[in-house]
């Protein structure tokens, strides 16, 4: 592996011999709040819709004629642009990635807004999408993380091409990471090629205005009526530590044990296998730069809303008051690490994992550190985490027919 770091721009090149497809992934830190919800999503969409050199159609045709994938995506903390290609197309793929990052025109902003709004409206036909949006928007009210799709529907029409271009300029000056993983016999040579190609990214003016979000002031329940729904969808969440927190690894292992290990987690076993309440029940730990959210989700018969919420509570209290067995703890750790291996099989997965580690300032050796951190978690840590975070203030969001929402 070869690395380069200068003026807020880092490059990593990793050789995985005899792999036919390579990936170059470029991440930009988002450190500032956009004026309107939807700005980051629109930047991501328009980045790959034409440049000064190539119209949107020419760009797409060139990619398809060569079997090159190019995509971009905006998440709460970063913007990402990525290309995946056959090894022989390295030169063209890196040139196209350069072109879109430096020369995108952001033409047809109003058309893209129209399309985005249509896609959001269609997506909100789904109960799960609706309840997730309500949950996130309520939890992060007043914070950029609360810029959900429904807020985008309300604010998107205020967005202009100039607003997008100006905000992209700010993003371009943030911290940037470029990771290339593929069958690169001469890593040093590839590193030098990428350094020259992406020299324009070497500019750094670190400043950010997004604040940490750490407290839910009071227990809150928000309800959405959907009278035709066969199932109720329930989300209950707590604010917990982020990846910088000393609790991070403990929270990862606790989340696994409670509800993210697959078919044998506690929530799955107790609420699905033993009580038959749901097909889907799980916990998630979403780690953002300024907030950590641990949440439980269940899709169940509307008449089981109370039973499900009681089931969540029972599992929290059980973990808080009783240390898990050593076998269960070791199992959760192995599951966390096994999943890490599972999701690091392709060059694309590896490039993204490394880029995320760097953009969140975790360093190039984070994987080894992470394994150590996970392995050092104790039984008591898990009970402590349940007591510290999951018995505190929470937000519950439920979608169900009106007659079942009186709880």
């Amino acid at each position, binding site marked *: 592996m070869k690395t380069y770091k200068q003026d807020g721009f880092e490059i990593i090149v990793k050789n995985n011999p005899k792999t036919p*497809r390579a990936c170059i992934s470029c991440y930009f830190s988002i450190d500032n709040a956009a004026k309107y919800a939807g700005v980051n999503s629109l930047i991501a969409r328009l980045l790959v819709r034409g440049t000064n050199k190539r119209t949107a159609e020419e760009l797409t045709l060139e990619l398809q004629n060569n079997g090159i994938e190019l995509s971009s995506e905006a998440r709460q903390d970063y913007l990402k642009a990525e290309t995946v290609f056959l090894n022989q197309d390295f030169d063209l793929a890196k040139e196209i990635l350069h072109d879109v990052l430096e020369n995108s025109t952001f033409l047809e902003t109003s058309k893209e807004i129209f399309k985005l709004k249509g*896609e959001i409206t269609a997506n909100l*036909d*789904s109960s799960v999408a609706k309840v997730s949006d309500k949950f996130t928007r309520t939890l992060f009210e007043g914070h950029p993380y609360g810029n959900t799709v429904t807020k985008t529907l309300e604010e998107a029409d205020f967005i202009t091409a100039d607003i997008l271009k100006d905000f992209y300029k700010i993003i371009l000056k943030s911290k940037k990471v470029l990771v290339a993983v593929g069958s690169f016999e001469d890593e040093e040579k590839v590193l030098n090629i990428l350094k020259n190609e992406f020299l324009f990214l070497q500019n750094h003016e670190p400043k950010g205005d997004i604040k940490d979000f750490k407290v839910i002031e009071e227990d809150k329940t928000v309800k959405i009526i959907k009278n*035709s729904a066969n199932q109720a969808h329930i989300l209950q969440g707590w604010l917990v530590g982020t990846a910088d927190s000393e609790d991070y690894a403990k929270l990862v292992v606790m989340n696994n044990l409670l509800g993210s290990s697959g078919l044998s987690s506690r929530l799955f076993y107790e609420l699905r296998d033993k009580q038959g309440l749901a097909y889907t029940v799980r916990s998630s730990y979403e780690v953002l730069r300024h907030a950590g959210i641990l949440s439980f989700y269940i899709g169940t018969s509307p008449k089981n809303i109370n039973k499900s919420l009681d089931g969540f509570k029972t599992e929290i209290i059980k973990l808080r008051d009783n240390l898990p067995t050593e076998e269960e703890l070791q199992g959760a750790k192995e599951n*966390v690490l096994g999943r890490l291996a599972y999701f690091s099989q392709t060059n694309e997965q590896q490039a993204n994992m490394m880029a995320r580690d760097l953009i969140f300032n975790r360093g190039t050796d984070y994987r080894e550190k992470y394994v150590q951190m996970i392995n050092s978690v104790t039984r008591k840590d898990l009970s402590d985490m349940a007591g510290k975070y999951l018995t505190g203030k929470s937000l519950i969001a439920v979608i169900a027919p009106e007659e079942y929402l009186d709880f």
Partner: protein
Amino acid sequence: MKRELIDYPYLEKPVSLYKLDNGHTVIIAYKKGEMANVSSWVKTGSINENDKNNGVSHFLEHLMFKGTHKYKAGEFDRILERKGAIINAATWKDYTFYYVTIEGKYIDLAIKMHSDMMIDPVLPKEEIGPEFDPNGKAPDDKRERYVVIEEIKMGEDNDWGKVYHLTNNLMYEKHPYKRKVIGTADIISRISQEKIMDYYKTFYTPDNISTIVVGEFKDEEEILNKIIENFKFQYNKTAPVIKNEPELIMKVPKYEEKTSETSTGYVMFGFLTDVPKNLKETIALSLLTGILGGSRTSRLNSKLIENVDKPHYNAIDTCYYQFREGNNFFIEANFDPDYKEQVIKEIKEELKGLNKITEDELKRAKKRTLVEFVENAETVSDIAEEIGHYYTVCGDLSYVKQYETTLDEITKEYLEEVASKYLDGDRCAIGVVMPKEEA
């Protein structure tokens, strides 16, 4: 025992296919890396069901995880997941498959537990839960029967699922593909443990199962011997061959519309096409899927979304499902409900336009297909799924080998011919889901 070696695109070594004396097929593929995958594909799904037991294949899939004589319910999940495994199963029209993806160092454990689950399920009544009348009072003890009913309800709330089932039902007259794989709450609530076990004994026979192992193995023979040692089938040796009347091309147009609590409209055009064994036509239809949908430059996307200022479509795409007794081609769209008539007309127009394919379109579609081969050889689970699909649905793994040469032979004229044979907007099923009118 017979062994056949098959050159498989983008794998370092040929894939070994063993046909054991008891009829059990074992396929071993070498893939360098930390992970390994073991899966078994059973050639049964809703194709072998009837109106009385519809959903039994899928229900059985759930119950296979409920313990054996060696391991109680939950132990399979617990033991393997505590080694970091990803385990699951899926049921479709032609097959049901079970898999474990795990670090290669645990492959022996994975084979041991997976084989035990496949050959010795107990299907305990206490895990299934009592039979009940779905229109009466629900039992207190809900268990797995209720989990499946919740899964059915989940599907009923999904609008894409709704329009798919509506269209699929219209496409067939009598063929078992007409039914939903998941079945109905009415059947699942009443089906007995004995009937489910009978179904297991009938179809989970050695000649009806292929076991696939993918990973970085030093000694292939050792893996093969472990499979042979662990798969000691104890019930029937052969599965019955059920003959269904093929339904390969729709003769008349069919249309059905339903309403739902949505704010957008959903439409699906469904076409019946030939069997996967007709490899050239199957590949041609797969290329037509890419020409019509799937990317920004595809015809439907570029004409109806990308090159329109205010499109009335939120999404439009194509998909192509391969089934042993006849494939399905679909066009699906989500749209502004004020434009329903126009949407149907526009899609029909685009279908008519398939009488003229350009060389550039053909070239792009072929390139995409070749890249997909590379993509599908990147992880042990993708490789296992590709092999499982080819062997179970096409019935012959050598199709993989023939794929690239057959792809080369396809011309634009041939694509036009196949499109005109199958993709006629006036000889297909059209399902529509529209928003309920406000009271």
